């Protein structure tokens, strides 16, 4: 049975999560991908305030499709997280506790997750329509000019995720394939 968790996340709860746990996430999360991360980190470097407080928050690496009339959002699956690896450790050190995306993370991000007691969740890449159905509301809160890459506040309900990297050294992107790898070439 998947665990039910609520965002913003509580650190003590995150500490109990292990790579390979299935969770259903409800609550408030923020989208951000390449261009938004670049801007957030440029603000940080310039010593300027960020447009959102990242403490205990979850960032979802996603750039949704435009919403059809009457819908809160269009298709909204995860993008490849690796492109955010250059920026993620700095944000984790600011208090960002959770990241949602798809694909492996760099050693630096794995270490930042460990150091800060964070968590990295895998959402199903390409399941854009299914994930959109979990989004109850969406509003742009920063960098509106970036279009799909703007930072959006999403209220989600029962978003199905898998804990991919935990704060205790567990990494499903390593352990999963190793369990099914047969010697080849």
């Amino acid at each position, binding site marked *: 049975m998947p665990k039910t968790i609520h965002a913003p996340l509580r650190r003590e709860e995150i500490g109990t999560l292990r790579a*390979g746990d*299935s969770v259903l996430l409800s609550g408030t999360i923020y989208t951000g991908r390449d*261009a938004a991360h670049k801007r957030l980190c440029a603000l940080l470097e310039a010593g300027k305030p960020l447009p959102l407080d990242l403490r205990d928050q979850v960032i979802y690496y*996603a*750039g*949704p*499709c*435009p*919403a*059809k009339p009457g819908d809160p959002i*269009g*298709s*909204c*699956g995860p*993008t*490849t997280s*690796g492109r955010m690896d250059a920026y993620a450790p700095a944000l984790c050190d600011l208090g960002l506790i959770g990241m949602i995306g*798809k*694909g*492996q993370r760099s050693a630096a991000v794995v270490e930042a997750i460990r150091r800060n007691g964070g968590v990295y969740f*895998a959402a*199903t*890449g*390409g*399941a*854009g*329509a*299914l994930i*959109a*159905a979990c989004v109850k509301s969406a509003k742009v809160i920063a960098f509106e000019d970036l*279009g*799909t890459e703007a930072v959006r506040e999403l209220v989600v309900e029962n978003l*199905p995720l*898998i804990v*991919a990297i935990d704060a205790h050294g567990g990494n*499903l*992107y390593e*352990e*999963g*394939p*190793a*369990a*099914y*790898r*047969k*010697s*080849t*070439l």
Partner: protein
Amino acid sequence: MREIDVKTVRETVFELFMSACCEIGRDVLELLRKGLETEKSPFGREVLSQLIENDRLAAARHMPICQDTGMAVVFMEIGQDVHFVGGDLNEAIEDGVRQAYREGCFRASVLSPLERVNTKDNTPAIVHMKIVPGDSVAITAAPKGFGSENMSRLWMLTPSQGIEGVKQAIVETVRLAGGNPCPPVVVGVGIGGTAEYAMMMAKHSLTRECGMPSEDPVLADLERELLESINALGIGPQGLGGTTTALAVHIEQMHTHIAGLPVAVNMQCHAARHKSAVI
């Protein structure tokens, strides 16, 4: 000589993208279902079930299968006896793409490469035209997402590396890609030609009905062997481990130079979207 109004081209391009972005082909769906039956990993089965449900939901609600509605790749085979009238053919294709991405509420993902300024209507399209005998026009729309495109690779092998080198290059490309290209993937391969032609073949092979073997028996055998090797990598659906890493391997080949052995691998996610029509 047959006259075709470019308006017909525009309308066809529009309809093909409207359908391609929202309705996964039966070919892909069949392979996902087959994967679900044989997949050994519980996570793998969970992911495959989600993808099948996602594809059903997207078609039913006519919304994009994936938020990455891609760059708009268009293949056209134009009969040499066709005369286009009523305007600029290239503009008609762009207009069809523009209209589909606006009306379909598809994501505008296209921007200038260095300044990163979005064109906001997903143009320009990437158009490949070929003149063929006859008086008809075949159009294939293949929206291409970049999670998988980014994992593509060109290997300029030396002749001494031979067939074993070719196999290694293809399997290694998939191994290095891991979970990034949204497995289960379709692996498009072009062997031979020149650097750019090898990649063109790799891309074109992805427009083949998914899982349909090559008509060339040597390539068909190679496709089967590589599919087995790739699925032995253990990457699995979404890279979380499992036995369904690829749904299919498609290979095309072309004569090449005595000094070379180009191998291009164009990675395609499970949303292997392609729709065709003939005018």
